[in-house]
């Protein structure tokens, strides 16, 4: 999903798990509108979605393992949360370790999360998203704050994981080049509207120009 700042990429991603209610239209998951389902079903639906926000939203004071286990809270109660905090189950710790190992930061399992570098924290956020075994992973600007070389690595990791574990991946990106090079389907968003939905090869220069063109009349309106 590509588009200029303010196009509505984050809003669309957040409406996919219902944290932002849709102002118009609706989000249907498994054929059911999110706005129609009750709390219990909303919770079950959410537990099959994983979301990585742009700021990662880790709890910095907690150990990495607790942050990863937090990804699985959709399938447990308060006790599950307290256990994750105080004395995680061995099987859960093992799974958290394997996921962290897979994303390349297995040795950080028991570190405090705020002692990690930005790139390492991002990988912890990926492991947290994978912990519940999601069917859809939503990632908001996952490479906005990393250098270009790291950006490609991170996106390739997400794509590899999606293929390995069989989940759908919806990523918002600023960088059009990366999006065209790596993804099979591009959505162009501008000012809250879908401009195009096609494979990268089908994308013409006209559409790209329309996507990022500066429109003075729109700026006037904003003032």
């Amino acid at each position, binding site marked *: 999903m590509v588009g200029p700042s303010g196009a509505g990429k984050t809003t669309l991603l957040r409406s996919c798990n219902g*944290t932002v209610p849709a102002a118009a239209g609706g989000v249907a998951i498994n054929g059911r509108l999110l706005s129609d389902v009750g709390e219990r079903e909303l919770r079950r639906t959410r537990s099959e979605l994983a979301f990585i926000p742009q700021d990662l939203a880790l709890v910095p004071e907690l150990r990495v393992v607790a942050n990863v286990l937090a990804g699985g809270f959709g399938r447990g*109660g308060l006790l599950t949360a307290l256990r994750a905090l105080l004395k995680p189950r061995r099987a859960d710790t093992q799974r958290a370790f394997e996921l962290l190992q897979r994303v390349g930061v297995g040795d950080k399992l028991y570190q405090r999360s705020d002692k990690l570098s930005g790139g390492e924290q991002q990988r912890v956020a990926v492991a947290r998203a994978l912990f519940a075994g999601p069917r859809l992973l939503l990632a908001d600007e996952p490479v906005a704050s990393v250098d270009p070389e790291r950006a490609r690595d991170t996106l390739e990791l997400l794509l590899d994981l999606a293929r390995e574990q069989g989940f759908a991946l919806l990523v918002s990106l600023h960088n059009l080049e990366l999006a065209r090079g790596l993804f099979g389907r591009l959505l162009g968003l501008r000012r809250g509207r879908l401009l195009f939905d096609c494979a990268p090869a089908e994308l013409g220069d006209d559409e790209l120009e329309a996507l990022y063109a500066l429109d003075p009349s729109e700026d006037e309106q904003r003032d």
Partner: protein
Amino acid sequence: MSSATDSRAGTQRAVVGAGKRRAVVGAIAAAGLASAALLSAQGQLTLPGLESLELLGRFFSHALRPALDYGSPFVPVGAPPLLLQVATATWRTVQLAVAAMSLAVPVALLLGFAGASAWWRLPGPGGRAVLRRLGPLVYAPARVVMTLARSVHELLWALLFLAAVGLSDTAAVLAIAIPYAGTLGKVFSEMIDEAPRDAAVQLTGSGATAAQAFSLALLPRALPDMAAYTFYRFECALRSAAVLGFFGPETLGKFIRLAWNESLYAELWTYLYALFALIAVSDMASRALRQRFLGETPAR
């Protein structure tokens, strides 16, 4: 075009900001001058006379020579050596403060959780509707109780108890514990409510309940501040326990008052130094504990 407008608006805002600042500083200065004028008109702001200056001089001249033994010939029979007396009074002060805090902190935790709005205003499924309805019914009484408890200062509580039952040690402990529970609870609730909610929102977005998000994403973020504030209040409790000695309990304050009444400035300083040492030691201990258990860096 639009950026030019923006920068002009920015400059205007800065000018308005500076004007507002000047107005606020001016108002504070004017209020200070006005109250000084008012007080001196009523003859309450008199300069200290020669006599009181002399008293101050005598008091401070003993600062570098605190007493290590009784200087007065009128020592009661059977009185323990001065330093033992100081040590006992210091220990009593610590005991009183610890007792008061061990009552105040659990009550404050309960009141603080109940008086925070985070646990019933958090977004997310999981009994949310019930919490929303229940929230205000618990929240409002908790805030009222905290306000009532802390609006009366510990000295006033002490005077109340003194009038009613005499200031026993139990009464002194309660006199400190009641307002401290109110203050701690209020600050706890605000720390919980001010903790960043990004992680809590993120968790509820992936199916966590409000209770899970509260205990894992909000509490841990508020906890270091809550611990630091508790240690600070313990320090305040030490001072309060010392001061309540003026009304009876055998803490440092009692002996400070006795020494002052009999103009035994050297002994007075011994007790004051004990109080300084007590506060310093509690400060060092709290820093060491926080580093050990909350992983805080020594810089803080």
